């Protein structure tokens, strides 16, 4: 068997490949569902219905998708420049810390100013979290996969320390949580009687902005050039180090904004379980979208739908919610394989 690069991938293949990949992963996971003794089609129907079958389900799915859009964008932007930021989880918490620091009484402004201020502060905090890894990479060639990954734990321990110590809310009956965000800083709810908040609009706007910037701005050009061929980019006069720094600030900033959305929109206060791994899931979101900013919206909704739908399915029939993780993981794997089929033609013999 040999692989030959395709010169031009036909459009139908580009569109069909990820769809077929997701279908293939559904088929693979049906084996596990059969194992639990449940009818497969009914299980998938319940999953789909739970995620998209009611206005409540849709609102829950979109709420879940909100942080995933932002962390997915964080990964997509960084990976485009071959900057392997695995630390969106930590950067998300940095954004949440900044929002908590400013938003629990230190500053009080009308909501029109307060909310943008919180997002800006969160973005800066997320970017700052990447300063050390990016300098270690550009100055000393330290692998950023290691530094960003390990910083996640450092940041999480810092959050732990703050919530157990100086920032612990005395009114929390002993739970490790910070004081609530002041009313001016709380994000408005988009849909009555749901948890869906303004963070979704921030995520959608960010996706559009990132897409436009990658396509039309000089920065986007430089990021793509550095990612595709750093040597040629240097030769043409693009500073690779400066571009890496820029990418890191954008990527960390997006992840930080995801943290702000969760604190100020969903929970209202900082806790240790603010993110059930949104930072890591963002990598899957970006991969599923083939690093395309608009695709990130779709794949974030898809992932969120699987998680929300699996919760609802497991309540209805006896299938553990872990099936969601299996579905997501196998979808990402299948999509990566399908991308190979888009890029290469397989020749048997």
């Amino acid at each position, binding site marked *: 068997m040999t692989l030959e690069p395709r010169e031009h991938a036909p459009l139908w293949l580009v569109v069909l490949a990820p769809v077929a990949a997701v279908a293939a992963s559904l088929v693979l996971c049906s084996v596990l569902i059969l194992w639990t003794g449940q009818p497969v089609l009914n299980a998938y129907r319940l999953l789909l219905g739970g995620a998209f079958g009611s206005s409540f389900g849709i609102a829950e799915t979109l709420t879940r998708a909100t942080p995933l859009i932002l962390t997915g964008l964080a990964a997509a932007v960084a990976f485009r420049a071959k900057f392997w930021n695995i630390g969106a989880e930590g950067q998300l918490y940095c954004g949440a810390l900044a929002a908590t620091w400013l938003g629990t009484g230190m500053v009080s402004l009308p909501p029109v100013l307060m909310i943008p201020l919180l997002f800006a502060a969160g973005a800066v905090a997320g970017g700052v979290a990447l300063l050390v890894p990016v300098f270690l990479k550009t100055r000393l060639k330290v692998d950023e996969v290691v530094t960003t990954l390990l910083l996640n734990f450092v940041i999480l321990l810092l959050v732990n320390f703050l919530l157990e110590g100086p920032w612990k809310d005395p009114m929390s009956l002993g739970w490790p949580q910070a004081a609530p965000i002041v009313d001016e800083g709380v994000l408005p709810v988009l849909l009555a009687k749901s948890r869906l908040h303004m963070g979704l609009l921030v995520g959608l706007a960010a996706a559009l902005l990132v897409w436009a910037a990658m396509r039309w701005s000089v920065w986007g050009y430089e990021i793509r*050039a550095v990612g595709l*061929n750093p040597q040629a980019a240097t030769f043409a*006069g693009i500073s690779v180090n400066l571009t890496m720094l820029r990418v890191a600030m954008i990527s960390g900033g997006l992840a930080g904004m995801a943290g702000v959305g969760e604190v100020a929109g969903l929970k209202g206060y900082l806790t240790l379980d603010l993110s059930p791994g949104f930072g890591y899931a963002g990598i899957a979101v970006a991969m599923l979208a083939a690093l395309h900013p608009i695709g990130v919206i779709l794949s974030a909704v898809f992932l969120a739908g699987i998680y929300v739908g699996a919760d609802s399915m497991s309540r209805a029939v006896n299938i553990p919610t872990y099936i969601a993780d299996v579905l997501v993981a196998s979808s990402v794997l299948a999509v990566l394989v399908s991308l190979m089929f888009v890029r290469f033609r397989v020749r048997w013999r």
Partner: protein
Amino acid sequence: MTLEIRGVTKRFGALVANDAISLSVAEGEVLALLGENGAGKTTLMNILFGHYTADAGEVLVDGTALPPGDTRAAIAAGVGMVHQHFALADNMTVLENITLGTESLWSWRSDAAAARRRIREMADAYGLAVDPDRRVDELSIGEKQRVEILKALYRHARILILDEPTSVLTPQEADRLFETLRAMTAEGLSVIFISHKLHEILAISDRVTVLRRGAVVGTVATAEADRESLAEMMVGHKVARPRVEHLEPGSPVVELAGVTVSGAGGARLLDGVTLTVREREIVGLAGVAGNGQSALAALLSGTLAPAAGDVRIDGETVARFSARDFIARRVGRIPEDRHATGVVGDMAVWENLIAEQLREPPFWRWGRIIDFAACRAYARRLVEQFDIRGAGIDGTTRLLSGGNMQKLILARTLDRSPRFILASQPIRGLDEGAIAAVHQRLLDAKREGAAVLVISEDLDEILGIADRVVVIHGGRVSAPLDVGAVDARRLGLMMAGDLAHGEGAAA
């Protein structure tokens, strides 16, 4: 032993790399395989050696067909191959490299004494002098090639394939290789000699098989061929070489004084280089690969800063070594490796054409938004003017042929009417038609007043277009010589390290 290739066909997708190729080599014969880059020579040899499997056809040694795709069978049948890029373990001795893979894994010890004796015998018989106990990384390029040949002979090769063997050698080393080949054919060995250098083929071969676009154009006896006829067979039409006119040089544009560049581990890549390139002249820098050319090219591209010495452009000392500053000083750069350094292969043709000017006003508006219309109009004009074929401005750059990719780089470089042009191996891997086009562009730029430095390992190229020649060896550069006062022989001696050999002849 004889070798025959019968009707070998190999397709890569839509590309037919080999189209029903047949040829034969008799015992004691040197067959030259001549063809431009991309004519299918290397593919054919990879099929012969079992690296690729042919779609049709067969390879016969002494009338017996070799099993396809089996390198071991090819070696066992007596086929030996010396690749253009050597496959030697640098940290092992010559002896170890040669015996590697020939001894049984079940034996406790290797019989080094017997191997050493055999290597000595072969080396004496064919003039392949090299000390079996030296480490390979201490050897010169010519010696490494001898080790590769010994490696093949040690495995009892009777048919030796040499892929572009002279591209890394000085003319003297090439002569020595030819003597070895003659000694081998006198013993009854057969040689397939792959090259696109006509004078070498005329010097060494008995017959020539010419390939063009994957098919055999014809086979002729070397005695009945000459340069022109072979060139015409190879290219398919008569090739007109651009004419060189000698102009009165103007003021110096680039001046290097005592420039030293240190590499990893403190090795001196450039050692006190002094060099001047003036308006309206082309200076050729000759040298065997790996003698500091890359460092000099990087230095003059702005991607490497010197450890000591002075670089002046238009009389101004350069303080900052960055590609951006060099572009701003109107230095046009043609990199050695166009795929790795010249273009971003996965971006569009137009995006690569504006790569060096992206920060200039006509190409963006409102600060940092790219003006697509302006960029595309500019790219369309360059594609037209420089005759870049194979893809439109929206095509993927990676898909361009070598010649068209080089035209793209020339276009974005020359359109800014540079003061100084650094052309590093500008014709490497190009076919005759593209070579003529590239040289014509450089000569035009010279006429318009540019100072040009051509770095090349191809002496024909340097003698063909330069006004003055300097030779680089071990990071040191000779005094300039007038191109009329030198020939390949003298340059060869200088390239081998005798830089002073040109003294007294300087113009």
